Structure formats: C-alpha cells, structure tokens
C-alpha cells in the first residue's frame, strides 16, 4: 500500500528548503517572482501537512494498528474524541500537530500580506519555513509518525487513561497554538532586523498575532492547571513541574513583550528590548516543546537516548545565533528616540513590569534546569522544588500585581503629585484600609493580607478608570450609564479590554493566594459510619460501591457532607481500574461553593475491614482561577476585536491631559 503521509512530509521537506532559498535569493536580488514562488511553496507545505495529518487521523479512526503510533496510543474501544486527541497524545503526533499549526499560521500570514509588507515578507517566510523545516526533519528522520510494525497487533495499547480527559483533550492544542503563535512576531522581528525597517511596522502588523498567541498560552496554562487539579488528585493545580514551567516561561516573556511594545508604539523607546523579548519568547517556546517532549530534566542520561535532544539544542543554537547576530548588527540603528524622564511615569512602570516578568522567567528557568547544571558542574544532581519557586516568585509576583494597578493609569513621562493623588489616593486608602480590616478580623497570614490588599488596590484603580470614562461620556454626550459603558469600551477596545484582562489577573491572584495561604488538608482512615471534621464540614463515610463495565472497574466511596448537623451533599470520590492498559486512576469528587472547593480523594480501601482512607482538602477561592480565566478571555476578545474605523469624536474618552484641563 502506498503511504500518503510520509510522501507528503518528504515533499513538504523539499518545498520548505525551496521556500527558504527562493525567499532569501529573491529578497537579495530583488526578484519578485522568486519571492512569490517561495510563498506558493509555503502554501504547498501547508497543504501537504494537512494531507499528512489527515492520513494519520484516518489511520487512528480506522484503527490501522499496523502503524506503530496508532497501536501505541489508541485502541478499538477508545471513544472517538479521544481517538482524535491521540493525534497529539504521543511524541511524533504532537510534533506533526505542531507543524500543522505552524504551517497553517504561515499560510494565513502569507495570504494576509500578499499586497502588504512586501519588503518584510521574504524574511518572514524564510524564518517560518526554517522552523517548519526543523519540525519536518524531526518527523522524517527522528520520530516518524507513520512507522509501520513488522506485524499487525489485534488491538492497540490505548491512550494513557490520565490523558482520557476533557481538559487534556483541549490543553495541548491551546498550548501549541500559543507556542506557535509566538513565532509570527518573531519572524516579523527578524525580517525587520534583516531589512533594516526598524520602525514599529513589524510590531503593528503582528499586534493581533501576539495577542492571539498570548491568549492561547494563557488558556494552555490554565487548561493544564485545571487538568492537574481534576485528574491528578493531589489537591493542587500547580506543582512547578518542569513541564508546567516549560509552558509558563514563554507566557511570562510574551506578557512582557505585549506591554513593552506599547512603549515602542507610543514613545519609540525600548526597541532593542522588544527584539530581545520576542527572540527570548520564541526560543522559550522551542525550549518548552523540547522540555515536554524529551524529559531532559528527569534525567540527563535520557537526553542522549531520546534522539530529539541534540537536534533541539542544535536548532535552538542556530536560531539564537542568527537572531542575536542580526540584532547586534542592527544595534546602532536601534537607538531609542526618547529617554526615561522619571521613575514615576508610565514608561518606567512598564519597564519595571518587564524586568520583573523577565526576572520571574529567569528564576523559573534557573530552577527548572538546576538539576542539569548542578550535575554538569558539581557531578551531583541537586533539585529545587516548589518551595524554591514559591519563595522567589511570591514577592516578585506581588510587585507585579501592584504594577498591574499602577501601569495603565499613571501618566506618561512624569507623573505630577496631583495626578498621582487623583489616580491613586482612593485605591490606596481602600487597599490599606482593607488590609487593616483583614488583620483586625484575625487573618494572621501577612503575605495573604498583603496580596488581598493589593488586589483591592488594583480593582479600585480599574473601577475608577471605568467610572471616570463613563462619567466623562455622560457629561459630554449625555448617554445613559450602560450606553456610555458600551461605547466607551467599544471605541477604546485596547485600553478597556486591557483593564478587563487585568481584572481576570486579579481574580487569579485571589485564587492563588487563597489556595496557598488557607488550604486545609486532612487525611483520615475511617470505618463505615465514622465521620471526621474538615473546616466547617463534617464528613461521614457511609460505604463503598463497586461496579464494572468493559472499559474499567469502578470503586466509589459514598461520603455524606454535613454542615451544621444537616446533610447537604453526597460526594463520591472514586478509584478506577482501567482494563487496557491495566492502570488504576483516582477520580476526585469536588463540591464548589462560591469558589471554595471541598475536594475529596479516595486514597485506599481495604475490602476485608471495609476501612477507607479519605484525603480531604478545602481549597479556598480556587474557583476564581477559572473565572479569572474566563474574564481574561473576554478582555482579550475585546482588545483583539477589529474596531471599525472610529469617528474621531465618537472615540472620545478622556485623555489624561484633558482630564487635567477639565479640573
């Protein structure tokens, strides 16, 4: 039988090289037809990747177990949605999926810019195709997804039960889309350096791409956290595992980039810094893919075995050398046109926000690769765990939260005492007052009090911005509150969308603070009928029920939840024994009230004595993590939505100058 997939990949590999060469030659010799031909090749690479993905999907759906990948990651009884998700369940498939997203985005960029940015496009195309070439080479020579077995097994080994989960179905696509999305601004940045078009065209062109990438990175991280929380059953959602850090680091630098490009757009500053950030973000997405796929951190020794490791490091090295080389070459032309005037200015606040985000990224990076470094330098492997990350990042994170309130509101150039007072007096009073109230109320966890106080402060600055904007419109145009609010946001999407995103971030801080400071954890072994207290709840263990189907055997403890002596719920944490592959899993039971979760795990069960070990957690405010995510998503949509060309008067929102004048 003719294998379509590998042939498509092989042709795509050749065409990717063709696209790189023709782009570069065309750009250097000013040959337009070369450049166009290279763009057609990029579209063809996309088409061929689609064919390869379709071929692998077909093999999965039709259970062609002769293909090793299919036999390894699916089975004939696996539900269809997970069969499709098996496409990104294993190494080769996830790299192919990465390639699909990359080439799809490349195709969109090529189509969008057929008549625009013609000077930049050949280098954009070459950069993206070089990245595609790397992944194609992996797929052809290192981890081929279409490898056939010498025999055809009657049944597949099935997808790991831990991955048979809704959140795990959507987590990798979101994260990969975020990862790959970062290569678009990177490619435009490289093109800007290569052509010397160093104004902010590359930044304006990729603004939406960057936001989109950031949006998916955020979602990817949140989905992963949600998965860990609901599936892994240890009561938390974030463990500073290398794989989590891999996804978190590019998010940090991408967030920094999103903020610092605003300074370049408005003030023509930070040009070098923006290049550094976009390069860093791109390299971290590749590094992240490498970390999740190679296991280099779990053991340095697996690094050489995996086959992927040296290639990834090589590719990272090549891209870093090229990017930094271009940057250094253009350094003289990247001089800022403005200087920082005062520490009390928006420019300085944004810069500080950037330094802290990058500082956190560096600390996370250091902690993640520390075992590798210590083994290489001292010959003994030393690991740092969650305590390290929490210690370092908690203070930095709180400063960052504070800046979330200050940055968007403080005046440009130099904030006067009166403008500071106007913007921050009441939020500060509320934040500090709230803090004292919490201490008086007996909350003794000062870190948490500080965090909540800053949350109040930030929330108040944002609320005040909305209030002022609505009032100004009402005064100017005479709209009612809702119309004023809708128009205010509609006509100034970027600014107010940003505020909404910040509200989402504040909500997540509430969740992180609540769970880090006030989490209750209790482990009890109980006989049927016995009960124990957790927080305000009394939990009574009634019985264990067991049942079985073709997929798995289930064993669920029935736990009555009592509050003030009355039963309010029954929770059924479960143990499951999957039959194929034979693997036990833990299914947690969660009861959420106002964002606070009662979280139960069935630790073990002894059939002879009927005793069960129940692990109970109370996770205060954890629900705000997800709600914050939803608010963040809404805010991003407001920001990203294309605005109709605004009528100058209709776009009215008080600028700082006007506000000052009106007072």
């Amino acid at each position, binding site marked *: 039988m003719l294998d379509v997939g590998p042939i498509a990949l092989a042709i795509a590999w050749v065409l990717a090289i063709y696209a790189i060469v023709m782009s570069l030659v065309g750009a250097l010799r000013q040959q337009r037809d070369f450049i166009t031909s290279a763009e057609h090749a990029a579209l063809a690479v996309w088409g061929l990747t689609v064919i390869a993905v379709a071929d692998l999907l077909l093999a999965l759906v039709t259970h062609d177990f002769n293909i090793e990948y299919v036999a390894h990651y699916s089975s004939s009884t696996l539900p269809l949605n997970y069969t499709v998700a098996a496409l990104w369940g294993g190494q080769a498939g996830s790299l192919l999926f990465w390639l699909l997203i990359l080439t799809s985005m490349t195709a969109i960029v090529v189509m969008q810019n057929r008549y625009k940015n013609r000077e930049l496009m050949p280098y954009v195309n070459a950069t993206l195709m070089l990245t595609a070439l790397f992944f194609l080479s992996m797929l052809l020579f290192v981890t081929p997804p279409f490898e056939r077995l010498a025999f055809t097994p009657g049944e597949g080994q099935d997808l790991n039960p831990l*991955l048979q989960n809704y959140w795990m179905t959507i987590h990798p696509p979101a994260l990969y889309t975020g990862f790959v999305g970062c290569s678009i601004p990177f490619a435009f940045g490289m093109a800007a350096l290569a052509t010397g078009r160093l104004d902010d065209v590359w930044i304006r062109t990729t603004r939406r791409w960057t936001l989109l990438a950031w949006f998916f990175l955020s979602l990817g991280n949140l989905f992963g956290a949600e998965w860990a929380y609901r599936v892994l059953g240890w009561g938390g959602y974030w463990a500073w595992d290398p794989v989590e850090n891999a996804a978190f680091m590019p998010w940090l630098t991408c967030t920094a980039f999103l903020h610092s490009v605003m300074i370049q757009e408005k003030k023509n500053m930070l040009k070098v810094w923006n290049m550094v950030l976009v390069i860093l973000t791109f390299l971290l997405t590749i590094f992240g893919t490498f970390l999740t796929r190679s296991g280099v951190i779990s053991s340095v020794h697996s690094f050489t075995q995996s*086959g992927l490791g040296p290639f990834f490091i090589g590719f990272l090295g090549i891209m870093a050398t090229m990017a930094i080389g271009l940057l250094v070459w253009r350094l003289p032309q990247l001089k800022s046109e403005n200087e920082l005037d005062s520490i009390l200015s928006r420019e300085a606040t944004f810069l500080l926000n950037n330094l802290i985000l990058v*500082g956190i990224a560096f600390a996370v990076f250091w*902690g993640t690769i520390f075992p590798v470094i210590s083994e290489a330098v001292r010959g*003994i492997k030393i*690991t740092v765990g969650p305590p390290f990350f929490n*210690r370092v990042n908690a203070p930095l994170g709180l400063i960052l939260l504070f800046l979330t309130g200050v940055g968007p509101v403080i005046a440009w150039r130099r904030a006067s005492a009166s403008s500071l007072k106007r913007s921050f007096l009441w939020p500060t009073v509320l934040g500090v007052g709230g803090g004292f109230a919490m201490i008086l109320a007996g909350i003794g966890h000062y870190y948490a009090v500080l965090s909540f106080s800053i949350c109040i402060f930030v929330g108040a600055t944002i609320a005040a911005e909305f209030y002022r904007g609505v009032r100004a419109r009402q005064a100017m145009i005479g709209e009612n509150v809702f119309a004023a609010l809708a128009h205010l946001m509609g006509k100034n999407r970027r600014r107010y969308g940003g505020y909404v995103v910040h509200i989402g971030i504040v909500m997540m801080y509430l969740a992180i603070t609540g769970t880090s400071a006030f989490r209750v954890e209790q482990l009890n072994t109980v006989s049927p009928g016995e009960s124990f207290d957790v927080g305000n709840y009394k939990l009574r263990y009634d019985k264990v029920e067991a049942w079985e189907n073709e997929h798995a055997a289930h064993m669920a403890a029935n736990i009555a939840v009592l509050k003030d002596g009355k039963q309010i719920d029954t929770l059924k944490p479960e143990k499951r024994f999957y039959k194929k592959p034979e693997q036990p899993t833990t299914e947690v039971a969660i009861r959420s009230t106002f964002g606070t979760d009662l979280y139960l795990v069935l*630790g073990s069960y002894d059939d002879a004595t009927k005793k069960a*070990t129940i692990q109970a957690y109370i996770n205060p405010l954890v629900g705000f993590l997800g709600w914050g995510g939803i608010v963040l998503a809404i805010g991003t949509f407001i920001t990203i939505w294309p605005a109709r060309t605004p009528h100058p008067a209709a776009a009215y929102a008080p600028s700082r100058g006007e506000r000052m004048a009106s007072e």
Partner: protein
Amino acid sequence: MNRKARFFVAGLALVGAVAYLMYTGVSQTSVYYLTIGEFITKKEGLANEGVRVAGRVALGSVRKNMTPNGEELNFRIGDFQGNDSPDQPTVPVHYVGVVPDMFKAAGGSDVIIEGKYRDGTLQAQNVLTSCPSKYEAKAAGEAAAK
C-alpha cells in the same frame, strides 16, 4: 547623566534582589537527587539531609498497613535495572499517606522517594511513581537498546 545613573542603580537593585531571592531559595530548599546506587554508597554522609532517591521497589518487599493517618508502607528499594537478583543491596523505606495509583503492591514500580535518611531507613514524605507516558523518550531509548 545623573538621571541615567539613578535608573542604573534602580535596575541593579532589582537584579540584586532577584539574585538574592534565588540564591537563598536554592541554598535553603535544594535537595540532592540521587539514584539508589549513588545513594547506597553515600548514604551515611547524607543522614538527615533532604534527598530524592530514584530506585525500583524490590519484588515482594511491600508491607501495607492501614493506620488512622493513612496507609502505612514499608518496602525496600534497590537498583534492579535489568537484574532481578534478590542479593542486590537495598534500602528500607517507610511512608505513611496516600499511596500513588501506579505503586504496585507486588513491587517492581520505579519510584522516586522524597524524604530524609534516618536510623538506617528512608523516611519518605512523598513517594512518586514515574509517569508512564509523559516522558516516553527514555522508554524509546531503552527499546532501541534492546
């Protein structure tokens, strides 16, 4: 110039603060990560230090017991990579808590023990079983070696 110097000092202070946080973080929270083979040769020097030890549970060595604070596990870990000889040196491990799903009662699981070595026993705070498919690279490498 004066202004520039001020910004420079501010930046330096920030970098210093991050460096300080990281330095103290590492020195106060780091633990040694050893394979069981390395641990056996160095264990006396590591008494009462935080360690992570990777090894394999000896077949038939697992004793389980339900206690009010969770399940109590006593077992031994050794190297056992490609060699099931029972004469291999092992270290006893003691743990109370929730037993991870992938921990086999018969023994043979690959585990990472987090805890401290005290009075000849690894007192585990945490028993981690290596995740079967998250890092498949190693398994692929092993398969290729066969």
